[in-house]
């Protein structure tokens, strides 16, 4: 049976895919028809603007503000907003925390996001390989300092637990062996500059230091191997990796509790056709439009803010200004600062966003919209979005 694709379905699709939209955009999707609408949403991401800073390497808080603002403004204005919601997904999955990644600069985080954008729709294995050599990741999970004498286990552990197989599919020994395989994967400043002589616009780059590398044979998941590349290859071939990531994707795009048959099916699609193929499958699946899954996700603070500002016709936030500073503090109080998840497992999401204090912050933000009815278009932002007063409905919090 063909899926009915009229305005409510198009608004649902646009909200889920991009977390941002206005009436005329949903109408355009209806006119395209479902298949073309999905292809339109999933087209190649428009590039984000380059990042340049006048801050010094030690002025990291300033840089953090600048890249946060740059990203939100890009999400608010890009012709391909679905790519930015996917960047948020990868950022919450292949996590790095700005405050915990000492040494890394705004430019390094901005480059990591560019990698999410460039490879985010493709095969998961390609993205994983790029992130395994991403300077921010190497610094964040301490692999950059890992040497054969005492391998650092942090990256190896999270690679298995959070980025590929999930708990229960490996042993402590597998972690130790993988940590040995990744010794010597480290970073240096581009051109070999020293931090003291470099501006904050000089990024880190990956290098392999053979002298730090443990070249011995390792036993990893029952296989004999030597290098980090081989560890990644084992994980990329492993079907459990796709079940694990497909489940996370379904939680982000469909429901907090995806049914097992959909996870299995989605895992197969993800492994065969990459993330764009997975999203195309999901967005054209009849389950995606069933009443059970409409309004079943809670907007994250970034999605709430981007969706709301866009609905109000605002295309720019300025965190340096006084009101912008308050907005940034509100993001912190709601529990989601860009580039800074609370820990290595990312944001928990779901109803945990709506504890008393964070929910209060969300609601208090609405005061800014009183008397601005003229430009406010809530038809994609929420169901039952009939006028400014609808903003205090529970539906406003849903995706």
């Amino acid at each position, binding site marked *: 049976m063909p899926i009915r694709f009229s305005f409510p379905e198009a608004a649902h699709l646009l909200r889920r895919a991009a977390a941002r939209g206005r009436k005329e955009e949903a109408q355009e999707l209806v006119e395209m028809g479902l298949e073309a609408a999905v292809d339109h949403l999933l087209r190649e991401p428009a590039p984000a603007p380059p990042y340049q800073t006048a801050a010094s390497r030690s002025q990291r808080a300033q840089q953090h503000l600048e890249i946060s603002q740059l990203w939100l403004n890009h999400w608010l204005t890009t012709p391909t907003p679905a790519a930015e919601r996917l960047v948020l997904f990868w950022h919450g999955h292949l996590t790095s925390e700005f405050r915990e990644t*000492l040494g890394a600069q705004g430019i390094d985080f901005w480059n990591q996001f560019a990698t999410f954008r460039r490879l985010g729709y493709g095969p998961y294995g390609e993205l994983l390989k790029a992130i395994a050599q991403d300077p921010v990741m190497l610094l964040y999970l301490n692999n950059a300092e890992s040497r054969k004498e005492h391998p650092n286990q942090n990256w190896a552990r999270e690679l298995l637990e959070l980025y590929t197989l999930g708990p229960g599919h490996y042993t402590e020994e597998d972690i130790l062996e993988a940590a040995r395989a990744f010794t010597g994967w480290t970073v240096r400043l581009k051109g070999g500059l020293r931090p003291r002589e470099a501006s904050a616009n000089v990024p880190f780059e990956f290098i392999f230091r053979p002298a730090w590398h443990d070249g011995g044979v390792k036993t990893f998941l029952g296989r004999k191997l030597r290098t980090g590349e081989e560890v990644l290859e084992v994980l990329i071939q492993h079907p459990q990796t796709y079940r694990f990531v497909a489940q996370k994707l379904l939680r982000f795009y469909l429901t907090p509790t995806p049914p097992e048959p959909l996870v299995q099916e989605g895992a197969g699609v993800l492994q065969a056709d990459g993330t764009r193929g997975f999203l195309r499958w999901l967005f054209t699946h009849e389950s995606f439009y069933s009443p059970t899954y409409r309004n079943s996700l809670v907007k994250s603070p970034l999605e709430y803010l981007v969706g709301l500002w866009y609905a109000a016709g605002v295309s720019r936030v300025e965190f340096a200004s006084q009101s912008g500073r308050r907005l940034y503090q509100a993001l912190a109080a709601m529990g989601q600062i860009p580039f800074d998840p609370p820990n290595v497992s990312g944001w928990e999401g779901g109803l945990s966003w709506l504890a008393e204090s964070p929910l209060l912050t969300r609601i208090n933000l609405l005061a800014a919209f009183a008397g601005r009815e003229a430009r406010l278009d809530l038809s994609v932002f929420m169901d039952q979005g009939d006028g400014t007063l609808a903003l205090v409905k529970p539906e406003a919090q849903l995706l």
Partner: protein
Amino acid sequence: MNRRAFIQKSLLTLALGQGAPSLLARTALAARSEGKILVVVNLFGGNDQLNTLVPYRNELYYRLRPHIAIPRSEVLELGVRGERLGLHPALRPLISMWEGGELALIPQVGYPNPNRSHFISTAIWHTADPSRKAETGWLGRWGDAQEDPFCETFLGGATPLAQVGQRRTAPAINGIDAFSLRLPRGLEEAFERELQRVRSGTAEEVRRAMGSLRTALTRVGQLRQVKNQAQYPENAFGRSLADIARMIAGGLGSSVYYTTLGGWDTHAGQAPRQAELLGYLAQGLAAFRTDMRAAGRDKDVLILVFSEFGRQVAENASYGTDHGEGGLMLVLGGGVKGGLYGGEPDLEDLELNALKYQTDFRNVYAAALQWIEANPKEVLGAEFRPLALF
């Protein structure tokens, strides 16, 4: 149910019913406020026991940690009762409590078949279930049996699993001063109207969250007048302890308060980071107890500090330590029987470079539950002998 519990319950039932006079509400709150209070501090990330409670007379400790061991000259000695162990210098604010017999140190606390994942181990501590079947937290299960939605409170943004029960989740209050609804009249009236319209599915869950917020605004709003006496560290942890003190002094009525201090995952460059965090912890706890003494509640409050695991014994190549197993718990307060609950760790009998656990954390939980007059067996699902901490 003892007599006081009965009176509390009857008064609260009255007070929460329609049209109860505010005097009764105040009496009910006051009756509750005389009970014992548990404050839980969760050190997320895995605090390193060996550099907190230092085996400074053990040569092997210095050999295994050539770069990050705490120098003997800097260790705070604990005297005879501390056996051959001493405290990290940043814990100096706790020394007077140790000397006053109000600080219990419990080394190598853990559980059978330890898990070295932050998230799994944290979930085990929060649910008090190493078999990982429980879906509710230990304090959440206790809260399920209480009448008052404010029987327990979380200080922060999102309530941890420990305080999630079947029936409800502890309110999460990030700070007293900012906790007020600031909407123009039209929106505020619409907010109240929408609260009355029952939904289904996730929208109904959101409506309930809005309802909990409404209740919390009323209860917490009354605390804005209460001021702290002591100086706390200028950070989120310090502010949350300061607000717990205000909540207790102002008679919010919770029997359990819960807060977190993160950042203990010291895989690299451990020494300065851990020193900074231990400093915040000790300064915060000392300030909090000053406030409790000022409020006349110090003997009623038991503070329990835990981390999801300790760290490995030999340092790694990044001047840090990786995830371990048994870790250190601290229990303190005016009513606590201080001392060392366990011996010096055996650095030669390790499990994949980690200290083996000695004391099951549920024995400590059992004591904490007894402190708030709860039945440990009902909450923990099995008999755990409470550590004699008070």
